[in-house]
Structures are given as structure tokens and as C-alpha cells.
């Protein structure tokens, strides 16, 4: 995009600056719209599985429900508890929201359609997603109230636990792709399954790892069945208890932006990103971004599906699953996959 602005007669620095700002807006604004719509979809899917109607009053089929909710929280009064640590209390939702948006900088939506095509894209996502725990921990501590504090403790322990196995799973994918760059990871998936199927899921070594990754994503984004941080039967609303108005809405938006990010990671790492599901020429006439969005929304549907059908875990079960099941399993697969690749791809040479 820099070249386009340069052709309008700007110097390189100015063109780069304008192009970056335009790119950020082009990602952030549709993302916010998508978040508003998936909140609606989430509620509709949940309602449909429970044989309810779900939101159906505001706009046709209730499509505008999220916008009505947004307007409502925007008009509410922001309440800051007098015993709260004011600065951090205000900072916490901002951190959550900013971090949730920042990770999208390296997500490729189509071949070459990416804001920052950096070498260490996957590590960047890991780094940013490890930051998202701070919003929760800061809000829990700054609220100066029991339930948010318990929630913050739980969130910190939970996110660190599951990040370990997510890290090992990403290592497996990186070993296969031979790069940390997300564009190259997607390109290496072309025709991976017998030259027909695009995507790593069609691989006996990587499919189990994808299942672990999907479950870890649920835990990382604190979705049901791992939403111990906002378990309403024990902790009121968890770390959001003391928040109101826009500060509450920022948590909400950040949470769903993170969920979408995890869905798109599932797509990019295991299901061939913007490539069509089958490596067949006519399918490439459909724009890549359509495939990308279709896959991402499919994974979001799976997230909602899980939410509507699975009961919440107990906390000790959550920790056991993370440390005693997923961690050894993902480690085993790192060893198995690197061994397999050493024999098949690098001819057994050490």
C-alpha cells in the first residue's frame, strides 16, 4: 500500500506512515464490526441449541442487538469504586482491549494481505497473547474486592498453564513449516495431504495436536468449559464484577477479539488459511479472504457449540488437564514429529 501513496506524490516516510494508519483502520474497524456480529451469533447459536429464540427484537432477526447493547453501555455512568486503585483500575480494560487488537497485525487474510509480514509472526502472536493475562490480573487487583481478586489469581494460573502446551504445539507446526512467518506456514500447507488436501489437519501426526490446540484455545480465551475466571455461580462476574459502562464493554470486546484471533490461528496453522480446502484449480477462483473468513467463522461456531453443550470444569480438573495430560502429550508429539521429519525430510542426518 506504501507504493500507492508514494504514487500520489508523498515521500517514502509519509507514504509509509499513511499506509500503516490506513492498514490499521482497515483491520480494526471490520474487526470491531465482526466482534459485534459474532456476539450476536454466539447468543443465537447458544439459544438455538437450548431450543430458545435468542435475541430477536432489535432490527430484523435481532441483528442489531449488539449495537443496542453497545449504545446502552456507552450511555451508562462509569463507576469507579472508592477503594479501588484508580489508575490501574482504568488502565486494565484498556490493556485488555489494546492487546487483543495488537495481535491482528501479523494475521494474513489472503496471500500478501497482511499489515506486518514479519519473520517471527508466530512468536509475536505468542508474545501478545501472553500479555492478555495482565488486563485480567490488573483489574482483579485494582478492584480491591474479593471476587475479582480470586478471578485474577485463577486467570494467571490458568493462562500460564495452557500457554506452555500451546507453545509446544506451535513448535510442532513450525517444525513442519520450517518458518515462524505465518504466510510461509500457510503456503507450506498447500497440497499437504497427498497433494489434494490443503492443511496440516490431514496428517496423522498433526491432527491429534490440533485437537489439543483447539481445547487449549478454549482455555486460553477463558471460554466454557474453562471459564473459571468468570464462573458466575462462585465469583459473581469474576474480574469484571466492579466494572460498568464502557470499561466493561472494553473487556467484552477484547475477549471476543481474542476468541476470533484464536479461531483464525486454528485456520492459519492447521486448516490452510486462505487456501481452499482442496487443492483443485477452480476453487482458487474464490478469493482467498472468503475461504479464510469461512474457516474462521466455522471455528467460531465450534466455540459456541462447545459453550452450549459442555458443563464447566472444576479448577483442579483444569490444572490436571493442562499439566498432566496436555503438556506430556504435546512434548511427546514434539519429539515424534521432529524424529519423523529427521528421517523423512532430512535423510536421518543429525
Amino acid at each position, binding site marked *: 500500500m506504501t507504493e500507492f501513496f508514494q504514487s500520489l506524490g508523498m515521500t517514502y516516510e509519509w507514504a509509509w506512515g499513511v499506509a500503516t494508519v490506513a492498514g490499521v483502520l482497515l483491520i480494526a474497524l471490520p474487526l470491531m464490526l465482526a466482534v459485534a456480529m459474532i456476539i450476536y451469533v454466539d447468543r443465537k447459536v447458544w439459544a438455538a441449541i437450548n431450543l430458545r429464540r435468542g435475541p430477536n427484537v432489535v432490527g430484523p432477526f435481532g441483528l442489531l442487538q449488539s449495537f443496542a447493547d453497545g449504545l446502552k453501555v456507552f450511555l451508562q455512568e462509569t463507576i469507579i469504586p472508592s477503594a479501588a486503585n484508580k489508575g490501574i483500575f482504568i488502565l486494565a480494560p484498556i490493556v485488555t482491549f489494546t492487546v487483543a487488537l495488537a495481535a491482528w497485525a501479523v494475521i494474513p487474510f489472503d496471500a500478501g494481505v497482511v499489515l506486518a509480514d514479519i519473520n517471527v509472526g508466530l512468536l509475536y502472536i505468542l508474545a501478545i497473547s501472553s500479555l492478555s493475562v495482565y488486563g485480567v490480573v490488573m483489574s482483579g487487583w485494582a478492584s480491591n474486592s474479593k471476587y475479582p481478586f480470586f478471578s*485474577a*489469581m485463577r486467570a494467571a*494460573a490458568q493462562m500460564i498453564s495452557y*500457554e506452555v502446551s500451546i507453545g509446544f504445539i506451535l513448535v510442532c507446526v513450525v517444525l513442519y513449516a520450517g518458518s*515462524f512467518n505465518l504466510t510461509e506456514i500457510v503456503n507450506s500447507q498447500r497440497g499437504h495431504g497427498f497433494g489434494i488436501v490443503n492443511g496440516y489437519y490431514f496428517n496423522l501426526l498433526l491432527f491429534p495436536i490440533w485437537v489439543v490446540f483447539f481445547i487449549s484455545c478454549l482455555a486460553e480465551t477463558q471460554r466454557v468449559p474453562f471459564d473459571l475466571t468468570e464462573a458466575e455461580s462462585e465469583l459473581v462476574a469474576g474480574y469484571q464484577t466492579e466494572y460498568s459502562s464502557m470499561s466493561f464493554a472494553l473487556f467484552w470486546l477484547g475477549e471476543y477479539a481474542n476468541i476470533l484471533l484464536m479461531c483464525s490461528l486454528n485456520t492459519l496453522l492447521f486448516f490452510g488459511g486462505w487456501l481452499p480446502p482442496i487443492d483443485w484449480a477452480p476453487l482458487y477462483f474464490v478469493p482467498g479472504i472468503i475461504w479464510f473468513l469461512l474457516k474462521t467463522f466455522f471455528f467460531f461456531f465450534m466455540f459456541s457449540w462447545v459453550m452450549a453443550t459442555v458443563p464447566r470444569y472444576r479448577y483442579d480438573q483444569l490444572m490436571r488437564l493442562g499439566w498432566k495430560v496436555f503438556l506430556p502429550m504435546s512434548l511427546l508429539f514434539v519429539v515424534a514429529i521432529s524424529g519423523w521429519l529427521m528421517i523423512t525430510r532430512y535423510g536421518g542426518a543429525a
Partner: protein
Amino acid sequence: MIQTIAFYLFAVLVIASAVMVIMSRNPVHSVLWLILAFFNAAGLMVLVGAEFIAMLLVIVYVGAVAVLFLFVVMMLDIDFAELRAGFIKNFPLGIAIALVLLAELVLGIGAYRAGAIALGTPDGMAAPIVGVSNTEALGALLYSDYIFLFEATGLVLLVAMIGAIVLTHRKTAGDHRGQQDIAKQNRRNPNEATVMKRPTVGEGVEL
């Protein structure tokens, strides 16, 4: 131009937040300032082209170490008066450490000025690796020239991990390990778990 602005931005923020780490009264604020310092240091590393190290700094220090710091500090019940009471007593030691650090900095910068060791080479003689991404360059160096140091680091971490597990995983008297046995829980069935009793009036139940 952009690089210069970014450098001064990150550098000033690192120093300012490092000062705030020791200046702020509240330990939780200190940890949060420390996180900001780490984050800006990562920004500086990106500027010199060491993006791999920068990302590792954020993942390891900000994502794991600082979270545990914050975790512990948040749960502390801090008596601020007691914290400041030892100031005079600890002052000479603090000054001594500060002097040692200053001397090391002066020595380091002096050595650098006198003709530094070229980075990226084990002996300072070979040409630095050019044209590969720094993930590959680092990997090639770590797994060839520094393999024994690398393995030794892994061993140290393994020992530390085993130590932590041994310290926390205590076996109490009997075979009760202080935690649940999931397999045992799953093996239970209603016939063993519940007993049907029909006590008559005035008669207790023997369990």
C-alpha cells in the same frame, strides 16, 4: 528519521520506567513499571534487528516471569512502614552495589570503545553471518559452537524443575498424597458409594 524517533522513545521509556520501579511506593506498581521496562527493551531489540530475542524477551519475561512476580506481590500483605525502616541500615550495601554496577558499565563501554568483539562470532575473528533470518543464525550458533553450554543450561533448568516438584509434592503418612486420585474417583459406582438404610424410630445408623 523514524528509527531515531523510535529509539529515543523506547530508550527514554526504558529509563523512566526503570526509575519508577524503584521510586514507586506500591510494590504492585513497581512490578507493572518493570513490565513496561521489559516491553520497551524488547522494542529496542527490534530496532537493532534482533526480533527473535525481542519476542523471547516478551514471552519469557513479560509473559511468564513477571506474571509470577505480580502473582506473589499481589498476595503479599505489605507493611509500608516496615519496608522503609531498614533504609539507613541497607544504605551502605545499596551504594556499594551501585558502585560495582557503575564500574562494570564503565569497563564494558571502555572495552567496547577500544574495539569490541564482533557479535555473532564465537572467537571474534570469523565474519558475522549475513543474509539469514536471525532465528536461523541463532539456531546455527547455539546448536554448533555453543552446544555444550546450551545443553548445560537445559540441565540446570531440569534440576531446578525437579527441585521445585520435590519440594511441593510431599507424601504424607499412608498413601494419601494430598491430592485427588482421578482414576479412583472414576472407578466408584453407586453400589459402593451409597448405602440404603431404613432406621426405625429411636435407633441410630451404623456407618
